[in-house]
C-alpha cells in the first residue's frame, strides 16, 4: 500500500500556539482543511484550560485520540480502520512521539524555540512515522516487546557479537536479520523494548546502505544526549548495529573490525539470511508468541502450501487480522500483567465480569483465531477456516509447547 493512503490520519501541532507541525497519513489531495485541524485542536485545548483531559472520541465510523506530550507537542490521530480501537491508536501515538524523540532529541520538542525550524527538522521523522501507519507484519508497535527471530548457530554469533562490540569500544551491539533481533549483547537487552524496536524500525525505514553513522537519541535512556548508531550490512538483510560515543570512527570499525570478526562466520551468517521455516500445522496462517518476562516476541505470517483449499486471506491481510485480534484480546479479555503498562484499562470486558480469560477464540467465515496465555507466555494464532473449532485448543497448546520448549523461546 502507498504510505499515506491508509484510513489513519495523524496530526502534530505545537501545543501552545496550535500551529500544525505536520500531517501524515491522509493523501495530500485530501489534506484536512485548516478549520478542521483548528477545531480538533481547539476542543482539546478548551478541555485542558478547564483541567479536563480529552483523550478520545468516537463517531460512527471514526475514532479520534488526543495526547499532549511535555505540554509542548499535541498529537491527534483519526482512524476509520476496521480493527482499530483505542488501544492500538494509543500505542500509535506513543510510538510516534518516541520516534520524534529518537530522531530529534527531547530538548527540541519539549522547548520549541523556532516553529519553522522544528517543522523542517521533523521531516527527518516522516519515513519512520509513516511506517507505523502501514505496519505490515510488524507486531512490536502493539506488544511493546522486542521483535525477535530465531537463527541457527546463535551461540557462535552471540560470542562473536560480544567480542566485536567490545573491540569497537561499545557495550551495545545487535544483529538484525530481516529487521528483527537475532542476537544482542546483554546491555542491548537492557534498553527499553520500545527503544530496541525503534532502532530496528529506524534501520528498516532508511535507504538500503552498506554502512551508516546515524545520530540517535534514546527516548528513555538518553533523550537529551545523542549517541551514534553505526550499522554494517554484512549480507543483504543482515545488519550489525552498534551504539557508540564519539569514537571509534565508522571507517575504522568497517575496515579493521568487520573483516576480522565477521568474515570467518560467513557460512553461519549465510544460514541466518535464509528465512528459517517454522514447522507448524499447515492450518496456521500466522502466529505471535510473546514472552512477557523477557519482553520479547516471535511472529510470522506463514505462506500457505499448495494443498490449501477454500478461500484464503491474502498474506497482507493475515498480518492485519492478527494485529486486530491481538488488540481485541488484550483490551477486552487478557488483563495481563505487564501488557498495556501505563495504559489504564480501556474497555470493559465484553462479557461483563472482571475475571481474566486464559483462552479465547474468534470464528469467522474467512478465518479462525485463537489466543492462549500461560504466563509468562501468550500465544496468538490465526488459522484457516477449515481447521475444526474443537481442534483449536489442543493445537494452540501443542504449538505453545513446541515454541516454548523445543525452540526454547
Amino acid at each position, binding site marked *: 500500500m502507498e504510505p499515506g493512503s491508509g484510513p489513519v490520519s495523524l496530526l502534530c501541532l505545537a501545543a501552545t500556539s496550535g500551529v500544525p507541525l505536520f500531517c501524515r497519513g491522509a493523501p495530500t489531495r485530501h489534506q484536512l482543511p485548516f478549520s478542521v485541524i483548528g477545531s480538533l485542536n481547539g476542543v482539546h485545548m478548551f478541555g485542558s484550560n478547564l483541567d479536563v483531559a480529552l483523550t478520545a472520541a468516537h463517531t460512527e465510523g471514526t475514532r479520534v485520540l488526543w495526547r499532549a506530550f511535555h505540554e509542548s507537542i499535541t498529537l491527534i490521530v483519526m482512524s476509520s480502520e476496521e480493527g482499530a480501537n483505542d488501544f492500538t491508536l494509543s500505542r500509535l501515538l506513543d510510538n510516534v512521539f518516541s520516534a520524534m524523540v529518537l*530522531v530529534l532529541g527531547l530538548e527540541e520538542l519539549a522547548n520549541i524555540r523556532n516553529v519553522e525550524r522544528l517543522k523542517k527538522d521533523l521531516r527527518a521523522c516522516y519515513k519512520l512515522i509513516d511506517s507505523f501507519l502501514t505496519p505490515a507484519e510488524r507486531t512490536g508497535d502493539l506488544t511493546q516487546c522486542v521483535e525477535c527471530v530465531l537463527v541457527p548457530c546463535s551461540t557462535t554469533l552471540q560470542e562473536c557479537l560480544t567480542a566485536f562490540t567490545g573491540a569497537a569500544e561499545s557495550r551495545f551491539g545487535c544483529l538484525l536479520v530481516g529487521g528483527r533481533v537475532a542476537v544482542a549483547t546483554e546491555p542491548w537487552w537492557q534498553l527499553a523494548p520500545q527503544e530496541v524496536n525503534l532502532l530496528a524500525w529506524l534501520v528498516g525505514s*532508511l535507504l538500503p546502505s552498506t554502512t551508516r553513522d546515524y*545520530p540517535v537519541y534514546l527516548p528513555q535512556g538518553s533523550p537529551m544526549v545523542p549517541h551514534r548508531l553505526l550499522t554494517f550490512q554484512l549480507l543483504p538483510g543482515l545488519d550489525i548495529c552498534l551504539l557508540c560515543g564519539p569514537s571509534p570512527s565508522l571507517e575504522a570499525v568497517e575496515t579493521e573490525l568487520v573483516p576480522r570478526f565477521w568474515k570467518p562466520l560467513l557460512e553461519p551468517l549465510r544460514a541466518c539470511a535464509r528465512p528459517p521455516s517454522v514447522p507448524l500445522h499447515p492450518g496456521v496462517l500466522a502466529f505471535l508468541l510473546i514472552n512477557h518476562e523477557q519482553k520479547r516476541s516471535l511472529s510470522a505470517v506463514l505462506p500457505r502450501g499448495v494443498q490449501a483449499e477454500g478461500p484464503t486471506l491474502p498474506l497482507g491481510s493475515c498480518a492485519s487480522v492478527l494485529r486486530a485480534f491481538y488488540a481485541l484480546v488484550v483490551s477486552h479479555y487478557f488483563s495481563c500483567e505487564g501488557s498495556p503498562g501505563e495504559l489504564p484499562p480501556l474497555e470493559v470486558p465484553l462479557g461483563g465480569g472482571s475475571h481474566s480469560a486464559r483462552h479465547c477464540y474468534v470464528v469467522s467465515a474467512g478465518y479462525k483465531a485463537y489466543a492462549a496465555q500461560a504466563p509468562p507466555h501468550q500465544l496468538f494464532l490465526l488459522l484457516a477456516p477449515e481447521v475444526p473449532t474443537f481442534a483449536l485448543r489442543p493445537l494452540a497448546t501443542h504449538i505453545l509447547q513446541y515454541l516454548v520448549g523445543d525452540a526454547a523461546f
Partner: protein
Amino acid sequence: MSVPPGSVIVPDWLKSPEGKEHLAAILRKNKRKVFGLIERPVLPPQVASDTASYKVFVSGKSGVGKTALVAKLAGLEVPSTHHETIGIQTTVVYWPAKLRESGRAVIFRLQFWDCGEAALRKFDHILPACREKADAILFLFSFTDRSSFDDLPAQISRVVGDAGSLVRIVVGTKFDQFMHADVTERDVAEFQRTWHLPVFRAQSAAGSRQAGRRTPDAGTGLREVAPLLNGLAEHLWHQDQVAAGLIPAPLPSPEETGPC
C-alpha cells in the same frame, strides 16, 4: 587535473564477451546485485581479477541530489521525494573495468559516502569522518540551482581542507531538467577552463528509466552510469599510479597556485 576519458580504461569493454563475464558477477536477474561487507563478486577462477577499493565522498548542499546520485550509481531505486539524509550513509558499488596499459581487468570497489548537509552542520564528527582516508571527492551542483554552481569554489576549499592528494570531480545533477536549467554549457566550460577539474553530468530522476526508450540494458541502467563510474575509476587509478611513482606527477594544477 583531468584524465581524458578512455585513456586509462577501455571504453565499451563491458559489451565484449570478457566484459560480459565480469558484468554477470555484479548482476542478478538483470538487476544490480547487492553485496554485504563480507562478500564480493565471484568470478569464474580463470578470469579472477584484482579488486581495487576506494573511498569516495559525495558533497554538496542539501537537496542537490547526493542521495539520488548514489542510488542511481548503485542501481538502487531512486527516492522520488527529498528526505534529508540525517547522518552518514555509505554504499558500495562494484564496477569491473579493463585497463588499457596492462590489458588487465580490475574490479573497482567504490564506496560512496553520502551525508546530509544539515547533519554535517549539526554534528562535528561527520565531516572529518567523511574526509578520513578519502581517495576522491565528488562536488555536486544542480543544473537547476544557480547558487549551488556559484558556490563550487567555496565548497571545494571548505570540504577539501588540508587533505592531501585527492581526486576531485565536479558533477552537475538534474541534467534532465533542461527546461529549468539555471546553469548553461558556457558556464560549465568556463568553470572547467578556470579550475581544470573534470565535470560530469548526471540525471538521477526517480523512475526516469521507465520513461526512457527500451534498450537492451533498460533493466540494469548501466549505460547511464557507465560514463561517471568509468571516469571516476580512471582518475582514481591514475592517481595511484602517480603516487606509486609509476608515471610522472602532473604539473601543479591552477587551483593549487591560483586564487583560493
